[in-house]
């Protein structure tokens, strides 16, 4: 049965990825193009400033893939593979939780796990280290930024697993409602502390040394020798729209996963001998 569940998860994951890809292609690609244009115009302005100041000018290296390939094929393959990976992990989690998480019905379990995936894998890490369009981020901090992001993903996801386990232990004593409230609050406190302790991207050593204290790595306006702005900072509206669409795409992806997997899993389980309307597990304790 685990193989059937895994296959369904992978399949729904691919479909979810395709839906998210269409969303990305229509809404996000124009923004990504604008960000790439901003970046090259900014680089040109920087080069002109450097030349005027008698500094050596960096040469651009040629792209391996054209923007056309990146913006159509590349983003499609990337988002669909991400969907496949999440669908597979989702099915693994589903198989493990089945019958072990109290009286949750097979369909509800699918929705709950999808919500957990969205919150743990994406939303909580996003709150600390939000998605950025191209041109934001310095090359010399990529290692730290990647490590910090993955730490956030691990803490947020693992925290949910712990919270679910603790909640189940508390439920018989406090009742489901109170146990849920206590567990959610505990999760928020732990995540809040981790977020407060981890540095923001602008506070990384390399950034403070080179650019001074800023909250993030968002490009600031370029100034000439006299302090006059000769090139604007990154457009705030583009940044907001990009992040909003990024959240939207993930919400869509996890919704398709949860809603799409539920009936398929139920069919697998029914064949496996469970009564379709009965909760999968026994909560008598």
């Amino acid at each position, binding site marked *: 049965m*685990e193989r059937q569940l895994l296959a369904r998860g992978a399949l729904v994951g691919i479909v979810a990825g395709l839906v998210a890809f269409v969303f990305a292609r229509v809404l996000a690609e124009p923004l990504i193009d604008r960000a790439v244009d901003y970046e090259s115009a900014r680089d040109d302005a920087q080069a002109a400033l450097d030349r005027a100041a008698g500094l050596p000018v960096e040469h651009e290296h040629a792209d391996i*893939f054209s923007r056309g390939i990146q*913006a159509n094929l590349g983003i499609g393959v990337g988002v669909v593979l991400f969907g496949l990976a*999440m669908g597979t992990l989702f099915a693994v989690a589903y198989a*493990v939780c089945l019958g072990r998480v109290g009286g949750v019905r097979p369909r509800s379990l699918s929705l709950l796990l999808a919500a957990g995936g969205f919150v743990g894998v994406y939303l909580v890490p996003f709150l600390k280290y939000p998605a950025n369009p191209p041109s934001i981020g310095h090359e010399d901090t990529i290692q730290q*930024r990647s490590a910090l992001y993955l730490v956030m993903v691990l803490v947020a996801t693992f925290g949910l697993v712990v919270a679910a386990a603790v909640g189940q232990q508390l439920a018989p004593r406090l009742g489901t409602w109170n146990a849920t409230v206590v567990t959610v609050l505990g999760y928020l406190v732990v995540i809040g502390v981790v977020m407060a302790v981890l540095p923001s991207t602008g506070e990384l050593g390399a950034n403070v040394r080179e650019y001074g204290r800023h909250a993030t790595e968002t490009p600031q306006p370029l100034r000439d020798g006299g302090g006059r702005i000769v090139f604007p900072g990154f457009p705030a509206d583009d940044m907001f729209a990009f992040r909003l669409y990024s959240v939207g795409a993930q919400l869509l992806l996890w919704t398709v996963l949860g809603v799409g997997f539920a009936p398929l899993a139920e069919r697998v389980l029914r064949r496996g001998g469970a009564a379709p309307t009965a909760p999968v597990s026994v909560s008598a304790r």
Partner: protein
Amino acid sequence: MSSTLSTPRAAATPVVLSLPRAILWLASAAFAAVALYYFVGVDQGATSVFGNDAHIHEFVHDARHFLGFPCH
């Protein structure tokens, strides 16, 4: 909710997967999925499995930004 079987939890319904029996499939699937997550989101940025090359990074570049991974 309360219309559940009244047997103790050890005798849960037959749909509870026996983890020891399913562990190989579940573990390999989880491993493959995490590897995929890594290649889509992380490889050839901070670390690189295939050495100093940027083909994967460049190919999925837009997806990487949009899915929330650090890039650039």
